[in-house]
C-alpha cells in the first residue's frame, strides 16, 4: 500500500493501482499490441509474410529515421509492423500494417490528425476518425494510431482489411476533450488537429516555429478549418502561466506579414497573397486565426473561441 496525503492506494498487480474506493488506475494501453494484428489469413485471406517487427521509443529512428521525431513528440510508446500478401488471378498484392501505441488517446488522434491534409474521404465502415484511399488507410482508436499501406491493392481491399483490424481493438474512439472548445458552426469536418510538440505546431503554420509559443514544453493546441473564410482557427493552451506574448507575436507578424496592427488586444496582419492572420491572448490561452480570406469572419472566430 502507498499512503499519499488524502489518498490510499493499493498496488494490485503489475501496472495497476486501485484506490480505496475501488476505482481502477490502470496503466495506459492495457491491450497487448500484438493482439491487434490479424493472424495469418484471418482478414479476407491475407497471408502473413515474415515475422512482425517491433520498435519501442527511440528505436523508431531505426524504422523511419527523421520521421520518428514527430511521433516521439506525441508520446510514442511502441510500434508493431506486420506484412501481408495475397495473390488473386495471378496478381500479387501486399499490405503493410503499422500499429502505433501512443501515450494517450489524444496523442493517437493528434498524430493521426497531422498526417492528413483534411480533404480525405472517410469510410462509413470504419469508426471515426479514419480516411481511406487506394494506397493507404489511416485511423485512430483508443491509444492506437494505425497506418495501412498497400501495393497493388484496391481501396475496397484496404478498407476491408482496416475493418478487420479495428474490430480487434478493445477500446473506443479516441477522446480529445480540448476539441470540444472549437466552435462547431462552419467547422469543416476532417480538418481538426490536436497539436503537441513543435513539429506538429510547425505543420499547422511556420508561425509556430518560434520557441516562445511553448510547443517544445507544455503548450498544446487544437485547430480546424472553417468553411466561410477558409481560415484555420487555433486554440492554444500554454499549460502554465504565460506573460503576455503580444510584442513577440507582433514582431513575428511584422516579419511575415504586412499592415500589422492591433486593436482591443487583437493583433492582425495580412500576407502578400491577401490572407489574414489574427492573434489574441487571455492568460494561459491564445487564439490564432490564420490563412483566412475574410478578416471580419476571422475576427468573429477569434471572438467566439476566446469568449468566457
Amino acid at each position, binding site marked *: 500500500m502507498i499512503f499519499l496525503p*488524502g489518498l490510499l492506494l493499493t498496488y494490485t498487480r503489475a501496472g495497476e493501482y486501485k484506490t480505496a474506493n475501488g476505482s481502477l488506475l490502470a496503466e495506459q494501453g492495457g491491450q497487448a499490441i500484438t493482439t491487434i494484428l490479424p493472424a495469418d489469413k484471418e482478414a479476407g485471406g491475407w497471408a502473413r509474410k515474415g515475422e512482425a517487427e517491433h*520498435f519501442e521509443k527511440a528505436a523508431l*529512428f531505426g524504422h523511419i529515421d*527523421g520521421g520518428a521525431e514527430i511521433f516521439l513528440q506525441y508520446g510514442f510508446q511502441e510500434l508493431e509492423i506486420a506484412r501481408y500478401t495475397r495473390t488473386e488471378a495471378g496478381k500479387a498484392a501486399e499490405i503493410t500494417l503499422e500499429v502505433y501505441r501512443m501515450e494517450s488517446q489524444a496523442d493517437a488522434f493528434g498524430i493521426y490528425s497531422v498526417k492528413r491534409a483534411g480533404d480525405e474521404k472517410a469510410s462509413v465502415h470504419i469508426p471515426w476518425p479514419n480516411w481511406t484511399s487506394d494506397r493507404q488507410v489511416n485511423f485512430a482508436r483508443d491509444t492506437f494510431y494505425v497506418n495501412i499501406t498497400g501495393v497493388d491493392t484496391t481501396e475496397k481491399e484496404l478498407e476491408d482489411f482496416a475493418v478487420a483490424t479495428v474490430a480487434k481493438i478493445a477500446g473506443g474512439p479516441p477522446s480529445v476533450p480540448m476539441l470540444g472548445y472549437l466552435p462547431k458552426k462552419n467547422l469543416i469536418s476532417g480538418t481538426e488537429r490536436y497539436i503537441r510538440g513543435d513539429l506538429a505546431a510547425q505543420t499547422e503554420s511556420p508561425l509556430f516555429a518560434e520557441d516562445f509559443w511553448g510547443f517544445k514544453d507544455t503548450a498544446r493546441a487544437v485547430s480546424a478549418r472553417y468553411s466561410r473564410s477558409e481560415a484555420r482557427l487555433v486554440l492554444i493552451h500554454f499549460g502554465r502561466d*504565460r506573460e503576455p506574448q503580444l510584442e513577440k507575436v507582433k514582431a513575428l507578424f511584422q516579419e511575415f506579414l504586412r499592415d500589422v496592427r492591433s486593436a482591443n488586444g487583437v493583433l492582425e496582419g495580412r500576407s502578400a497573397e491577401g490572407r489574414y492572420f489574427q492573434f489574441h491572448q487571455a492568460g494561459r490561452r491564445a487564439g490564432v486565426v490564420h490563412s483566412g480570406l475574410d478578416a471580419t469572419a476571422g475576427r468573429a472566430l477569434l471572438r467566439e473561441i476566446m469568449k468566457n
Partner: protein
Amino acid sequence: MKKDDVLALAVEKECFANGHLSRRYFLSLSAVGLAGAALCSRLAGQEKIAGQKPQQDQPPDIKTNLDEIKKFPRTKNSLPGLFPGEVVKIPMGTTSNNGKIDTANVRKAVNMGIIALTGEKAIKAAWLKFVKPDEIIGIKVNPIGGKLLSTKPEVVDVIIEGLLEAGVPKKNIVIWDRRHFQLEEAGFIPERFPGIEITGTEMKGPNGDFYDDKGELWSKDNIDRDAPFYTADIELKYDKDIMPYMVNMGKESYFTKIVTRKVDKIINVPILKNRGATVTCCLKNLSYGSLSNTSRLHKIPDQSVSEPVAFPVLRDKVVLNIVDGLQACYDGGPGANPKFIYDANVMMFGTDPVAVDRIGHEFIIKERMARGVQQLEDKKRTAFLDIAADLGLGVSQRDKIKVKELALA
C-alpha cells in the same frame, strides 16, 4: 470555475489514458508526496501553478566541433566542385506515372543533364569531367522509403551506363547507403545490378542477425574510428534494439569506411522530400547517410545536415549531385507517407549541393503552397543552406544561382 481552469483540466486530461492516471506519469513525479498532492489537486479540479516562472524561450546551444571542421585545408577537389552556383533542371513531363517509370525518358534526361552541366558534346567526355577509370566510384542513393519513395533503380541504371561509357569498370562501381537491408527493399539487389557492389554500413551478418554470437554488432567495424569524426554535445541512450541503426553511443558520430577508405569519388543521388517547411535532399543524403549515431542529431537539424559535409571525406569526394525527383513528397516527410507522395517529375543536376538544395527547396515549397499545406514561407527554415555556404560548400543565395531549365524533347 473559470474557462481557463476548465480548459486546463481538458489539457491535463490529454495526459491521462481513459481518464486514469498513467503509471508512467505517476512515477515520473519525483516524490510520493508530490504525486499525492498532484493527484489531489486534479481530483479537486484546481490547477496549482502559482509561483511557476514562464518557460525559457531558447534551448541551450549544443556545441559541435565546427571550429575543427573549419581548419581542414581546401583542395582542388573541394566542393562546390567544377560548377559552383549552377543547376540544370529538367521537367520530366509524365516520365513517372504513379511510380511507373518511362526508362527511355530517364536515359534522355540524365544524358541531357550531364552534357548541359559540363558543356561537353559527348557523354563519355562529360562523365570524364568527374571520374577516372581507375577510381572507385560510389553512388550514394536514398533507399529509406523502400518501394514507396526511394532513389529509382532506373536512374542508377543510366548513371552506371555513363560510368561504363567513361571507362569505369563495373568492379569499380559501388552502390551504397547506411542500411544494407533498406537497399534491398528499394530494389538495389545483385540480380538487378550484376557485377556492381551493393553495400551498407549497418548490416546483418551471415547468421541473419545484427549481432554476432558474442553479442557484438556486425556493423561495429564498418565505422572508421581512426578518421576525423563529427561531435555534438548531445547524447541519447540506445537499447539493444536501436543500436544496430546507430552502431555507437556517445557524443561522436563516425564516418562509414565506405567514404573514408573504399570510394574515391561520390555521385550523390538523393530524392526530394519535405522536412517540415523545407527540403531534405543533397546535403542530408550525404551527412546522415555517412555517419553513425545520428538519432541525437535530429535535435540540431540545421547544423548536423550541413557541417559533416565539410569533412574532407565528403567535401573532397562528392563530384556530382543528381536529384531523382521523379516522385517526391510535399508533406509528411522525411518519412515516406503515401498520402503525400506524388509524381513530381523533375530532375536536377549540379556539382554544388547547396545550390541544388536551394532549388529543391524552392520546388517543394511551391508545391506545398499550391496545395494549401503552407501559406507562408519561413526563411529561417533554410538556415542549413547558409551554414553550408559559410563552410564554403556552395552557393545558398538564390540570386547568385544560375538555373538552366531544359525541355525534355
